[in-house]
């Protein structure tokens, strides 16, 4: 009985993680502007990987391997957002059509008022 509960928890975690990653991949190809695409990809970087690795931790049980998996989550959560922050910074710095892409109908923002 407890085996089935464990299997259910693992399955739910991994399927959720796969779903998040699939949505992120969909968004990556659906959006046009680079910052929007990075926003979509960041989900797979953080939430998707965390859910999948949590599922694997539950599957292995309390073991030295599960500690290593937890450390992988910590490392990826440190490294992934920072690298996407740097990429976004360079996109802002080098994109020639940055202002046009960042305009929105609801909130014109500072740039919109100036023009």
């Amino acid at each position: 009985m407890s085996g089935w509960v464990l299997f259910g928890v693992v399955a739910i975690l991994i399927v959720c993680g796969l779903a998040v990653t699939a949505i992120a991949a969909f968004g990556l190809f659906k959006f046009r502007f680079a910052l929007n695409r990075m926003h979509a990809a960041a989900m797979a970087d953080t939430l998707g990987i965390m859910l999948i690795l949590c599922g694997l931790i539950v599957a292995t049980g309390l073991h030295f391997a599960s500690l290593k998996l937890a450390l992988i989550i910590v490392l990826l959560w440190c490294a992934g957002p920072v690298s996407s922050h740097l990429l976004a910074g360079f996109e802002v710095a080098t994109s020639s059509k940055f202002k046009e892409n960042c305009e929105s109908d609801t909130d014109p923002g500072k740039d919109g008022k100036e023009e």
Partner: protein
Amino acid sequence: MSRIRSNYEKSFRARFLRYIMGEDELPEKDYMPDFRKQIDIEKEEDEKATEHYLVPPLEDPMSDAKRYAEMSGLRWFRRLYSVMAVLLCIAISALLIYNVTFMPRFGADDSPMNNEVTERYLEKAGEETGTVNVVTGLILQYRGFDTFGETHVLFIATIAVMILLKMKKKDKPEEAVGEPVGGDVILRTIARVLVPLIFLFGFYVLVNGHLSPGGGFSGGAVIGAGLILHSAAFGFSATARFFDEKIYDIIKVGSLVLYSMLIIYYLFTGANDIDSIVPLGKLGNIISSGLILPINILVGAEVACTMYAFYSLFRKGGI
């Protein structure tokens, strides 16, 4: 009541705390908007410069009908191009999938790779090389000559990149061109935490190469990645405090020469059937398996130097 020592500023604890907290002050402004403004100015200057050279467009000599005929040919070609590209992709995929069906099933015991060579390695590696991780024993002892050549390939590749990209000393900038000194605040904060851990993990992989998955090449790659992260976060001048060109030369050439000497000893004793003076030790201990542990460390130093040298040469033209 405790009293602050007179030389507290120089003590290990104070220096360590300063390192954790971040020694230098935060920059006043984020550098990105400034960088952007600079690009805008450059673009305006470019536009001004091109205004003088603008020539009014000439009358088109081609008639409309002729141009339309040419355009239709182009359209037809594009359509054919996309159709042919898809067909070619499908044909190649089908060919590859068809070939896969001839391969032996995964893990089948009658597949041609499960022959007496694999059996012999798995049975005798522990006793002959003293390694728990058979792969390390394989690449550093049974195929030691091959790995020796690979390490030389790394060395020669670095030399080739140096010939192409290394600048003269007076032309060489202290930092990479177009980069703010010190880098990004968020990157620096994360790097302060991660760089020591990456170095530690790389050394663990190096030293445990004969006991667990890992070894010289992977551990060296991890250490090289740590060096690259350090120089990307704190600037090349910060990395040069503990890893400048002089130390790079000593480590790179020294490790290769030492490795060559060890491998010559290996080959000499192996070819003449002489017992090595280095004992194999107890299977599973950290200090065991003879010369494999020092060779792993030397290969790791070589690989780490190569990775950092590539990054540094491409970024600023020097080490």
